[in-house]
């Protein structure tokens, strides 16, 4: 069966079908992320003073990931442009760079997630609060060891003071009243952070898989139907730029404000 309008433009829309399709898909994506941002705003506005976490995330890692995604969008567009001019080798090179950058983004995000799952707030029976990263090698059934800080109250956990040096804290297990990590179940902020960045990560993974498929296993189309192949690269690139665009809002919302 011959699929119509994969290369030539439809008279009524002025577009080839894949481009129309991807824009419709992106419109639905705007609503998906929009609903989540809407939830974020609502929960944040409704939170009591001092209960919404601030400075929980490492803005330097967030900024590095922002730059990585911006560069990956450029390499993606340059790859498409080179293909459009007939330079298949250059396309392959720049698109490989895009994929490497995507993997770098995922690696940094994994490090951040790992840190959050190993970061605990420990409430002691005498009312003291310790907060920091658990030292797995030194922690036993009888004692918990963290690299972190003593906090004077819950408000200080929500908005930790800057430039306070970390120290090793050893706590007897029998002294602990409660301990909770910075995972998604911690509070609304953590739940939204993991939901939204997790959904974004799924988009990165999906995007890089599509880019890889077109770049590698499906690149035979470049010889049989080059125009259609260029269009495939273009629509995948549109999706990739959208993923970048969403991150440009996630970064300031969660890391900076």
């Amino acid at each position: 069966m011959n699929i119509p309008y994969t290369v030539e433009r439809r008279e009524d829309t002025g577009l080839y079908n894949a481009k129309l399709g991807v824009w419709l898909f992106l419109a639905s994506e705007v609503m998906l992320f929009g609903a989540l941002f809407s939830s974020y705003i609502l929960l944040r506005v409704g939170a009591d003073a001092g209960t919404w976490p601030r400075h929980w995330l490492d803005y330097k890692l967030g900024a590095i990931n922002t730059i990585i995604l911006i560069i990956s969008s450029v390499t993606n567009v340059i790859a498409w442009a080179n293909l459009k001019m007939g330079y298949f080798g250059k396309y392959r090179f720049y698109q490989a760079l895009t994929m490497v950058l995507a993997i770098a983004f995922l690696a940094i995000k994994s490090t951040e997630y790992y840190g959050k799952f190993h970061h605990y707030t420990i409430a002691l029976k005498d009312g003291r609060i310790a907060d920091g990263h658990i030292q797995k090698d030194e922690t036993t059934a009888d004692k918990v060891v963290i690299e972190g800080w003593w906090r004077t109250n819950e408000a200080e956990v929500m908005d930790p003071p800057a430039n306070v040096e970390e120290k090793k804290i050893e706590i007897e297990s029998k002294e602990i009243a409660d301990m909770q990590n910075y995972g998604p179940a911690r509070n609304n902020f953590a739940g939204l952070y993991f939901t939204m960045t997790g959904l974004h990560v799924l988009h990165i993974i999906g995007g890089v898989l599509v880019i890889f498929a077109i770049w590698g296993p499906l690149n035979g189309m470049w010889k049989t139907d080059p125009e259609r192949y260029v269009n495939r690269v273009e629509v995948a690139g549109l999706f990739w730029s959208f993923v970048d665009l969403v991150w440009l809002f996630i970064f300031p919302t969660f890391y900076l404000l």
Partner: protein
Amino acid sequence: MNDSPEQELKDVKKRVQQHIMIAVGLAVGSLITLWTSQTNFGSFTRNVSITLGIAGIQAFMVAAFFMHLLSEKKLIYWFLVLTAVFFVVMIGVTFWARMDSNVVHYH
């Protein structure tokens, strides 16, 4: 827009240079966002407005240039206008519901 292959090639070459400039602009924008988030502009609302305003400008640059929205067909604009309307209604209804909540405290 001229669709002849020669013109298209010229457009593509021009776009590559443009994209590199835009990327530099986006990176600078991110650094400015970092700076604004560390600066006190008088109130939290003002800080949020400025930071998200810069993010909005960056998002526009990505959509306009990386996604070629500026040179796109009218139909795409209509889709996006429709999306924006639904988006505003969604957020508007959510906030309306919140403001409309009538909580009564009994003592």
